[in-house]
């Protein structure tokens, strides 16, 4: 992971920036109201920006989702390529589930069903490869990988 620098912009918000693997300096301003600006710095004048993109709250969410989602699906695709007969499913944890507040380890999901939780999507955040100590909240979407029958079992467990 490249090092991300944080800079406070009084009266505006916070700027985060980092250098990409290809050497391009990239930044994001988070305005106080939730608006974002995506900044591409100029190689000729490193203090200035070559491109500035204005994103409103919805645009930023969409961009974040697109960037985050592709990461999860890439990981899943990699797993699927390796093993034939493996299925993947997105399973929602309902509000009344006994799993709410309990961790992945508590549920002994993998021990009992052979299914792995490879990611959990909560609202706009995605947690790839959640640790066994990860606790579920109502509405979480668990990205699960396993045999079709194992996935059925997990769906039943989470709904109980």
């Amino acid at each position, binding site marked *: 992971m490249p090092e991300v620098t944080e800079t*406070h912009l*009084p*009266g505006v918000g916070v700027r985060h920036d980092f250098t990409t693997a290809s050497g391009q300096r990239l*930044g994001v301003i988070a305005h106080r109201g939730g608006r974002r600006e995506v900044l591409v710095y100029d190689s000729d004048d490193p203090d200035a920006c070559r491109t*500035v993109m204005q994103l409103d709250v919805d645009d930023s969410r969409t961009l974040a989702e697109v960037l985050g989602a592709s990461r999860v699906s890439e990981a899943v695709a990699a797993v699927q390529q390796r093993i034939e007969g493996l299925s993947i499913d997105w399973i929602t944890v309902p509000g009344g589930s006994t799993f709410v507040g309990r961790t992945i380890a508590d549920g002994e999901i993998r021990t009992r069903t052979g299914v792995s939780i490879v990611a959990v999507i909560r609202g706009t955040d995605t947690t790839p490869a959640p640790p066994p100590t990860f606790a579920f909240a109502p509405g979480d979407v668990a990205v699960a990988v396993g045999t079709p029958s194992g996935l059925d079992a997990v769906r039943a467990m989470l709904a109980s």
Partner: protein
Amino acid sequence: MSPLLAAVESHTATAFIEIGLLALVLSALARLASALGITAVPFYLVAGLALGEGGLVDLSVSEDFVALGAEIGVLLLLLALGLEYTAAELRHGLGTSAVPGVVDGLANALPGLAAGLLLGWSVPAAVLLGGVTWVSSSGVISKVLADLDRLGYRETPVILNLLVIEDLAMAVYLPVVAAVVVGADALATASTVSVALVTVGAVLWAATRFGSAVSARLSQGSNEALVLAVFGLTLAAGGVAQQLQISAAIGAFLVGLALSGPAQERASTLIEPLRDLFAAIFFLFFSFQIDPGDLPGALVPAVALAVVTSATKLGTGWLAAARAGIATRGRVRAGTALMARGEFSVVIASLGSGLADGPELGTTAAAYVLVTAVAGPIATKNADRLSALFAPSGRRRGT
């Protein structure tokens, strides 16, 4: 119709029509200003000159209403200034930019002070002119930077932190100046200043301790409850400060500084339209009192002062940006961005309206703000071209 309504009706009707037409003129000017990408303040000042005493049209708009509206405008402008930055931003700014802040104060206030003394004014009037040339307009600058898409540039935090320091410095400058303006002998002035500074210190201390609790309470209610509470607090604090002889503006400013967290954010959005309305009345009222006939005489010192203090602001920005490791073009951008003076220069000049040199100060300040508020953003926009002049070898960028 009740007898009361019938009695006030005729002169209220004329006042309504006059104020209404005036507001429409200001609205057209604000629209023009935003189309040109500059602040409306110089346009309001010109409108006031044209419509006020000795202008093209001598309007006799309900004096009491305009005068009180203008006072409220000053309070709301200072409230907004106080609201602009969070306590954490103020602390951080003080930590990183204290040295450039001192350079900024000395390099830009001293030319104003010297010019006032050279013009043969009294010391209080000269001190006020120093304040006029000192403060950059945070309103103009943040708008220009956002419009030019420069908020992400690396010199921008340097510029913003300097504005934060000026903001904090006002908390000390305003009470001192208020006491100096009242006059009296040295001992009385010293005691008023100490009372004022102790009050400011106590309020700031209380704000950091209890501000968040009060703000949390305030932020719970509805929008109308919050806007009324903030408006009420501002006027009441301004009144109390005025009674203590430390200028109503300080009271309003401290209310803005004391509010924090969600209440601060919501209050600044809610108070904005109210501030725009009353601030427009203030700028109009300020220039109503200026005789346009005096303007040509004030233009020479004002332009000379604008040239000198644009150069000192350029130097200040250059120095502050260089300290932060910014290259030549960024330094010039920072320096030119700081050149614009605006609303607070007018507020400072208005504090001296009661002085013997008050009218001259007002006219000079108005001309000075007219020049810098228009020239500053133009210089900012063309900063990269300016750097090319400084270093012709540098490759010019085509955009």
